[in-house]
């Protein structure tokens, strides 16, 4: 917004952290997790902190409030907030600042709200406690802010409990709560990461509007460069607790200097070459499948789907669209109410116990959270070796050799890794092991359920490339369940778009991605943040224009 505006630099900065050092406890030792970072923030400015997990961005965000998480300590440097030194300041002085002059918006609003109190009670708590407002004033202000943040029914929504509103609404209610005392500084810690793209765009717009309106300074923490490009005036790129690069949003996005920044920018540009139309009969065919969990409403309604050999079919949709349920139906965990599933032209028994070992072997699955998909008490040798013994009857030397072969296939050194436990691996390595376990069964089809969502972007990209290489070498088919359209663009041959348990559009990748779209596909596609300054404003203006012309614009179900 005011990038390159030199007049802001003349004023005394609101927050100045110099040579900030933070240490974290690992067993007996203290490791430095932030190594001498300088942060300067002026009034009315939005600073973006970006980096992968472990970059120290959340830790720095919290340090701006003079706070260190349990197990961490502020070991060096100065934190000066509006002329006040926060490092080493007595706890009650810092407490007077927090919530009043500095506020914090956490990633998971659902976990940050107390489920036993109404939203408006939690809103009013800070201003009343700190004596800024009376209870009645606070409630009136809450409704005002709810309206400003475009929450539906702003007069009434505050009287609901946290579980009675959706995730996107809760995140906005939390932003309102952070604003309750009109703070000078707000720290946003990945406020939209847990949200669907169509919801994210609305929350981003609301946050941006309210920050601008109240002329507050903000620190915006995220791992998504495309998001921060929309929000921040200035961006700091962090890695392993060090500053990599700092500059105005325009500089970082359009003229990055460092290699690491360029890597981050290049993420999401990977494209699989076009495969052309499917040649053979489909490997998996789903006909008219409907399903429900006991006594609830139907979550799948009349789904037809085909997956060809050596093809990647991406199933896209928001949370609650039924895409994971579809995977459960295919694997037999949830027998369908109606419809049938054919594997190589043969009907599969609907329920898991009815399927024989050979059917199970040919259909494998990889999960979203590699942490919970690997038994923490088994070594990699056993994790990968078990399917070999179970399906293929390999034992002893043969089994050991095959495990090593598989480890090499997923680019992990067998000598180093074969005796490790999953807790001794990074997130990306764990996901690789999950892939190896699936490969061990020598499957024809692998269902990938959000396999890259829990990973950092650079790591996710490597996993996608690995999966692509394996498909080319081993002639696998993938069903790729995801909410991330960047992943879809990168890896799919065909795309299936799901909404509320139904398929709204399906076809070859380029057909679905090029207009004309189904209106829901359009909403999804246009909501994915682009790595361009001003994308958010342009997109919102575009939607507004269409609405003004009287065209129907589909809105997120989460509004």
């Amino acid at each position: 917004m005011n990038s390159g505006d030199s007049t802001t630099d003349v004023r005394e900065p609101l927050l100045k952290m110099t040579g900030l050092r933070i240490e974290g406890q690992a067993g007996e030792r203290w490791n430095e997790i932030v190594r001498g970072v300088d942060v300067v923030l002026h009034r009315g400015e939005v600073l973006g902190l970006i980096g992968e997990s472990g970059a120290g961005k959340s830790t720095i965000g919290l340090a701006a409030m003079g706070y260190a998480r349990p197990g961490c300590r502020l070991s060096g440097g100065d934190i000066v907030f509006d002329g006040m030194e926060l490092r080493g300041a007595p706890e009650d002085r810092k407490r007077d600042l927090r919530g009043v002059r500095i506020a914090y918006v956490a990633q998971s609003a659902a976990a940050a709200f107390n489920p036993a109190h109404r939203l408006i009670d939690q809103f009013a708590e800070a201003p009343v406690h700190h004596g800024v407002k009376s209870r009645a004033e606070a409630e009136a202000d809450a409704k005002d802010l709810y309206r400003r943040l475009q929450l539906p029914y702003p007069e009434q929504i505050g009287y609901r409990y946290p579980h009675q509103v959706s995730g996107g609404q809760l995140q906005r209610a939390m932003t309102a709560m952070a604003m309750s005392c009109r703070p000078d500084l707000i720290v946003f810690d990945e406020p939209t990461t847990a949200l669907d793209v169509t919801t994210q765009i609305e929350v981003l717009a609301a946050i941006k509007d309210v920050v601008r309106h109240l002329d507050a300074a903000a620190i915006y923490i995220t791992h998504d460069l495309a998001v921060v490009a929309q929000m921040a005036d200035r961006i700091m790129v962090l890695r392993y607790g060090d500053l990599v690069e700092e500059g105005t949003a325009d500089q970082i996005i359009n003229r990055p200097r460092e290699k690491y920044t360029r890597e981050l920018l290049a993420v999401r540009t990977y494209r699989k070459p076009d495969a052309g139309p499917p040649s053979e009969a489909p490997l998996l065919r789903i006909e008219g499948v409907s399903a429900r969990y006991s006594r609830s409403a139907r979550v799948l309604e009349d789904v037809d789907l085909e997956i060809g050999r050596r093809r990647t079919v991406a199933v896209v949709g928001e949370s609650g669209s039924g895409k994971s349920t579809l995977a459960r139906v295919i694997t037999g965990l949830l027998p369908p109410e109606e419809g049938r599933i054919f594997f190589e032209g043969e009907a599969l028994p609907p329920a898991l116990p009815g399927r024989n070992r050979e059917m199970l072997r040919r259909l494998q699955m990889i999960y979203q959270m590699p942490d919970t998909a690997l038994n923490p008490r088994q070594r990699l040798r056993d994790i990968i070796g078990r399917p070999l013994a179970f399906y293929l009857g390999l034992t002893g030397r043969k089994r050991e050799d095959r495990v090593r072969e598989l480890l090499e296939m997923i680019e992990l050194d067998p000598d180093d890794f074969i005796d490790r436990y999953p807790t001794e691996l990074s997130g990306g390595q764990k996901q690789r092991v999950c892939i190896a376990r699936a490969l061990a069964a020598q499957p024809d089809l692998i269902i990938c359920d959000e396999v890259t969502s829990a990973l950092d972007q650079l790591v996710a990209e490597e996993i996608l490339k690995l999966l692509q290489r394996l498909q080319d070498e081993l002639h696998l088919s993938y069903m790729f369940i995801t909410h991330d359209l960047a992943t879809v663009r990168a890896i799919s041959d065909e795309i299936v778009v799901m909404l509320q348990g139904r398929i709204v559009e399906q076809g070859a990748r380029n057909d679905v991605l090029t207009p004309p779209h189904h209106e829901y596909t359009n909403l999804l596609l246009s909501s994915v943040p682009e790595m361009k300054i001003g994308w958010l404003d342009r997109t919102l203006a575009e939607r507004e224009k269409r609405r003004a012309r009287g065209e129907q614009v589909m809105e997120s179900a989460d509004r």
Partner: protein
Amino acid sequence: MQDALRLLGNSPWSARLGMLVVLFYVVVAIFAPVLTPYGESEIVAAEYEPWSSEFLLGTDNLGRDMLTRLIYGARNTIGIALITTVLAFLIGCVAGFLAATLGGWADQAIGRVVDVLMAIPQLIFALLILTIVGTAIPILVVVIAVLDSTRVFRLSRAVAMNIVVMDYVEVARLRGEGLWWIMRREVLPNALPPLVAEFGLRFCFVFLLLSALSFLGLGIQPPTADWGSMVRDNATLITFGDFTPILPAASIALLTVGVNFIVDWFLHQTAGLKDE
């Protein structure tokens, strides 16, 4: 192994004391025949001899050496309590894991049976059954084990419930693994820490229940030496100001405290609790 040694090196004094006590008891129990001057139920002198160089702790109501009986008592009481606890855990864990893994009707059925068993006070229930079916040692072991397995069931089911919802268990199901394999290889290793801690605690309760039953005359039967019945048989001595009958009771108390010290420390370690 090195980790275990380092862990031991960092243990607090209470846990070390507990380990020392348990080690002492185990050594005494194993080497009972070597350590004792007389036979277990050998009558060596007149009744109620006072402490002397010949009979270090005097003799009991039938003229048997008190020290000998005390040492053999360690062997019998601890041995039987240990077997009973192991059996209780076998029954309880299998039932608990089954209930958690199968869910639905199996869970309900096992759960309600356990509720019924738990609704009746344990000591009264044990007394009732033992009076009806007699007090042979195998029966004693089975009855106490079944009654105690209800508590183990509750814990193992609760722990397993959190494990069976993990993706790795679903992976095993999708792979086509059998129930037994899932319980043994996926659930058990992850449920072990709280169960081991519970084992120590349960052992204490079984031990106390066994001693209580013996004191009431329905536990381990004479002439087998046992701490509970030793307290009862020699209780009259207390009226004469002799505290010898307290010794078996003190042995019970010391072991219970020792085991609890170890369990506390173990729970602290595995629960990942940090001193703030």
